[in-house]
Each structure stands twice: as structure tokens, then as C-alpha cells.
């Protein structure tokens, strides 16, 4: 934990939202929508999920009452940073036709206010780092992502109460945000307060406006205890040792047949995954209009159409699509972006309607593989 940690109370948390809004940010924070915690725009701390907890298991999500009054006492929100910086449907360009000619009339779409994220988790920050690699650090970057990404303010929180679906500690992360934030909060109850670590100069300026006090050694000890306790309670895990080679060597494994029989090819896992980035383009024109739009929308390797070329789809079977997803996320991603494509947030486990658990599938592949390619010892 960084030196110079500060401490704020509930009033200053409210003040933090006000200061960010006054600086022109749209403040996105955890809030309850449709029976789940999502990140959405809030206009005050009363919209935050006070005393709300969650139970996340394979194929099931339920809200609970915590009883301790904590506001950030949930695991990963179903929607966090991805839909904001990488929207499900966005304009690429708009054009106008005149006879057999056309011209591009708009490449920008609606300007968007800069966004401040409050209450994002360590897994969200690490997923954001992946999107920066995939979308920004490229020969041809995604210019729309770049525009939204620049000027983002990140106030993260320590994940005090991970869910059953979580396994970030296996994937090189942990409950405590380590980097890539402007401010990092750790919520302590009894008395209710937030230890704040400062990550950037901008974060320091914002906190100065909010007002804070120096954290006491007991506060810092409580933060360390919370991190240790959260880490210990995360029991789901994935063995990442030699994972890429294991997946590459398992292309013909019977494990794919079995999971292919359970997979709905419904795309839910890819839509909730904070690192999945596949998209398609759609041309939208209406009857009798000389205008047309090219839009980019989220797509998924679980759709048959995804790998369609003249003559048919290259992945007709569910097992081929599941293999593509898992092999890309945990194997090919390492070759492409020198990192794992999974941050262990557990969303794909929770939000799969039939509860398919990728950590279990990896364990099965390991069990079925020979030792020489990373099979189970």
C-alpha cells in the first residue's frame, strides 16, 4: 500500500461525487438496476447500493442485505467499464447518397462527457488495461475508444467481499487495486470510513477539493487485514501454468464435445466479459432514405454467422465456438497481446444461464491432457 494514505468519511464520499460532477464528469458508480448491481450514472451517493450484498454462483446472481451498512460490499457488477468506453452499438460513419455518388457526412457521432468511474474493482482496472492493449496500442487503434478513454477518471475500491464466482488471485490480480487508478478507496465499517490511496496528481487534486485527513496506522492495518481476508476467501482458482500450450495441444480433446453439449451458444459470456472485444459492422439505411449509417456493434464468437465466409460458417458446432472462445481468451491472447485475456472476474460463470464454469473446463482439459503438454500431475 502506498505511503501517504488519507481517510474520508461518508460525507466526503458524497462530496467526492459532487466534486467529480462539478468538474464536468458523468459519474458512473455502482447502483441497483433490475435486481443486480450495475455501474450507471449517479447524481448523488444516495443512489449507491448501501448495505446491498450479492451472491454470485455459476448461473445465479442474488442481491442480499449485508447488515453492516457497507456501500461497496459487492463483487463484480454485471456492467462496469466496458459498455461505457466500448459501447455495444456506435456510429462509425454516416453518409449521404446522391445518385451513384456518396459522401461521408459524419464520423464523430454525439460528443460524450468525460466519465469518472467510482467503485470499480481491481479486476475492472486490469480488464481496462487489456482493452488498452487490444484497442489502443495497435498499428491501427480504435479511434473512438481512444477518444472516450482519454480523460477518464478512475476511483477504484478494494473488493472486500469477493463472490463464489471470483478467481482474480489466480489470474495475477487480487482484491486490492494495485495500479491504473487516480484514487483507490478501501471501505472500513465500524466506524464507517474510507482509506484513500492517491494514484495520480489529478487524484490528489480531486481529493484536496473533497477534504481528507491522514490515515492512522490502525486504519492501514485494517486495510491490510481486509485484503488478506478477501484473498483467503477466494477459493475458486485456475492453474495458469503452461495454459497456452495446454490449450493448443487440446484442440481435439473430448472435453470440447462435452461442454459443447451444455453450451447454449447464447453469447452471454462474451457480452458480460470485460475483455471480449469482438464486433461486427452493420449498415443501417431506411426505406426511401438517401442516408445510411455504418455502425459497429458487439459481436461474439458464439454466433454461427461470426465465422461465415462464402460457402458457410467455419464454426458450425457449439464445441468449435466454445473452443475458440476459451483458446483465444487463455491461450492465443498471450501470443497476440503478451498477456492473459482473462482477469478472473467470474462474470462469465455467474451470467451463463446454464452455469458453465471456465475454471472447471480448464481443469478437465488438464486432467485429459498428457503430462508433456501441461496435463494434471
Amino acid at each position: 500500500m502506498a505511503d501517504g494514505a488519507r481517510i474520508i468519511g461518508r460525507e466526503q464520499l458524497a462530496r467526492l461525487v459532487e466534486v467529480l460532477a462539478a468538474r464536468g464528469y458523468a459519474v458512473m458508480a455502482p447502483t441497483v438496476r433490475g435486481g443486480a448491481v450495475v455501474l450507471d450514472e449517479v447524481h448523488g451517493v444516495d443512489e449507491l447500493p448501501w448495505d446491498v450484498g450479492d451472491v454470485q454462483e455459476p448461473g445465479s446472481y442474488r442481491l442480499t442485505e449485508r447488515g453492516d451498512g457497507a456501500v461497496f460490499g459487492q463483487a463484480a457488477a454485471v456492467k462496469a467499464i466496458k459498455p461505457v468506453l466500448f459501447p455495444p452499438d456506435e456510429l462509425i460513419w454516416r453518409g449521404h447518397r446522391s445518385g451513384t455518388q456518396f459522401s461521408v457526412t459524419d464520423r464523430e457521432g454525439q460528443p460524450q462527457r468525460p466519465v469518472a468511474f467510482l467503485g470499480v474493482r481491481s479486476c475492472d482496472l486490469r480488464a481496462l488495461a487489456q482493452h488498452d492493449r487490444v484497442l489502443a496500442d495497435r498499428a491501427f487503434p480504435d479511434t473512438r475508444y481512444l477518444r472516450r478513454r482519454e480523460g477518464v477518471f478512475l476511483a477504484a475500491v478494494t473488493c472486500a467481499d469477493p463472490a463464489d464466482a471470483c478467481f482474480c488471485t489466480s489470474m495475477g490480480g487480487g482484491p486490492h487495486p494495485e495500479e491504473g487508478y487516480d484514487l483507490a478507496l478501501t471501505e472500513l465499517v465500524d466506524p464507517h470510513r474510507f482509506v484513500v490511496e492517491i494514484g495520480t496528481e489529478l487524484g490528489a487534486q480531486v481529493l484536496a477539493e473533497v477534504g481528507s485527513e491522514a490515515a492512522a496506522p490502525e486504519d492501514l492495518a485494517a486495510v491490510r487485514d481486509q485484503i488478506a481476508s478477501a484473498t483467503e476467501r477466494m477459493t475458486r482458482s485456475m492453474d495458469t501454468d503452461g495454459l497456452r500450450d495446454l490449450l493448443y495441444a487440446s484442440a481435439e480433446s473430448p472435453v470440447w464435445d462435452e461442454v459443447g453439449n451444455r453450451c447454449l451458444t447464447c453469447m452471454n459470456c462474451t457480452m458480460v466479459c470485460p475483455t471480449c472485444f469482438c464486433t461486427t459492422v452493420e449498415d443501417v439505411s431506411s426505406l426511401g432514405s438517401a442516408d445510411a449509417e455504418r455502425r459497429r456493434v458487439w459481436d461474439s464468437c458464439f454466433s454461427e454467422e461470426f465465422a461465415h465466409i462464402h460457402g458457410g460458417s467455419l464454426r458450425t458446432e457449439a464445441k468449435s465456438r466454445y473452443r475458440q472462445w476459451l483458446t483465444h481468451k487463455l491461450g492465443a491472447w498471450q501470443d497476440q497481446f503478451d498477456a492473459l485475456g482473462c482477469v478472473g472476474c467470474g462474470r462469465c460463470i455467474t451470467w451463463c444461464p446454464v452455469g458453465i464454469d471456465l475454471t472447471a473446463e480448464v481443469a478437465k482439459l488438464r486432467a485429459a491432457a498428457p503430462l508433456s503438454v501441461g496435463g494434471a500431475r
Partner: protein
Amino acid sequence: MFDESLKSSALPKLAVWKFASCDGCQLSLLNCEEELLTVAGAVSIAYFPEATRGVVEGPYDVSLVEGSVTSPEEIERIGQIREMSKTLVTLGACATSGGIQALRNFADVAEFRSIVYAHPEYLSTLARSTPISAHVSVDFELRGCPIDKGQLLEVLAALVESRRPRIPTYSVCAECKRRGNVCVMVANGTPCLGPVTQAGCGALCPTYERGCYGCFGPQNTPNTAALSDQLVAAGMPPEVAMRVYRTFNAAAEPFRRESERQERAVAVAGKGAGR
């Protein structure tokens, strides 16, 4: 795009036909209101009894066909329509899978007939309700009960512009998630057919926190067995798991197969209980 032949003086001639159905899909065209004038400007509506008494003789460039085939007379009529139509598009669950009336396919029509009608001998009806595609070739199928008017306009626009209609064949879940909904099945335990159902409605029911009841019929690779297993494991009795597939698209092949699988499960359970 550059096919001017469709645009100039000779607007494509459009006809709308009704078979066994409730008229709801045709009404979607009338419900287009604002867009109807655009439609009227882009095509010449040559036969549409629901909207106008004027009749223009065939052949037609585009025929929109609503309803399923349930009588011998209808088999003959759809053949004639096909012959005089360059492009034939079917509208809705009845025309694409046989509709709710295909529930007869799972029972004895003679029995229904004798219960419902005083003089069943005057009635000429087939044992099964079948989609249009069981009788003639179909160029494009629009799903739904009723169809989505946006999809109808998209298909008409595509026909006029000689392009492929942008009608997705993947699951409702994709639309639901893009719309930002929270999954009703995972978060509330509400049974939902979204994962096995074709998109196109904009995830209408889940948006109002209700489960999808499959009115757009099966998506292109539906895993109905895996979904049913999950629903049953979550407490749905097999007879209900059977009935959720016996609605608007009961005779669509993947839904029919699944409801019959559940029917067998019910029968096996019944035998077990009787022992």
C-alpha cells in the same frame, strides 16, 4: 444499390396474402403509420385486402404471406401465389412454423372437429398446420408473433435496394445484453427462452423483466435440451418444460423435438409414480 430498374416509374408491385392466422402480422404493416407513406412511395401496393379494395392483377414483385396452411384449398392457393410472385416473404410464426394452430399436430384433429362443430362433415381441414415453406420455396422468412415492424421495413428496404436484409439469426440474449438489461433468468430465476430464441424483437419481454416466451422461434443453433435441463433443475416441472415450447412455434423443428423429449420425461415419471 445501383439497380435503378426497381426505382423509376415501375415501382415494385407488392401483394399481401392471408392464410390461417389472426391478421396481426398484416396489421404490423398498417401500424407502420409514419413509415407507411414511405412504403407507399417505394412500392406499389397491388393487393392488400386489409388496407384497400383495389386489386391489381399479378404477377407481383413481392408477395408477403401471413398464416399457415391448414386446408387442401390453401395448398392449391399458395402454389398459385408462388407462381405469380418474383419474391415471396413469409410473415410471422404462423407462416414460418405453423403457428399456435400447429398444436393440432400433437393431437387428433377429428376429435377437435367433432367437439367444436355441429356439422363437422362440412369442414375440410388438414391433420396438421404447416408453414408456407413446407409447400413452396420461400425467399425470406420473418419471425415473430407478431412480426417486428422494424424488421418488416428492413426487409422491404433490402428488397428495393437489392441487398441482403439485416436480420440476425442469433439469440435474444445478444440483443438483451447490448440493450444493457440484467438477465432475468440469472438474477431473478425467471424462466426465459431467450438463449434458444432468435433475436429481432429487441429483447422486448426481458426489458420489462419478463422471461422470453420464444415467439420468434428457434435461433440458428438452439440448444433446447441444455436449457430445459437447467429449467428443470431449477424447479420447473417437466410438463411445464414441455409446455413452454408448445406455443407460437410449437411445430418449429427444434421446439417440437424438445417438447416431445419433455413429454417422454413426463410419461416416464408418470409410470414411475404409478408403480
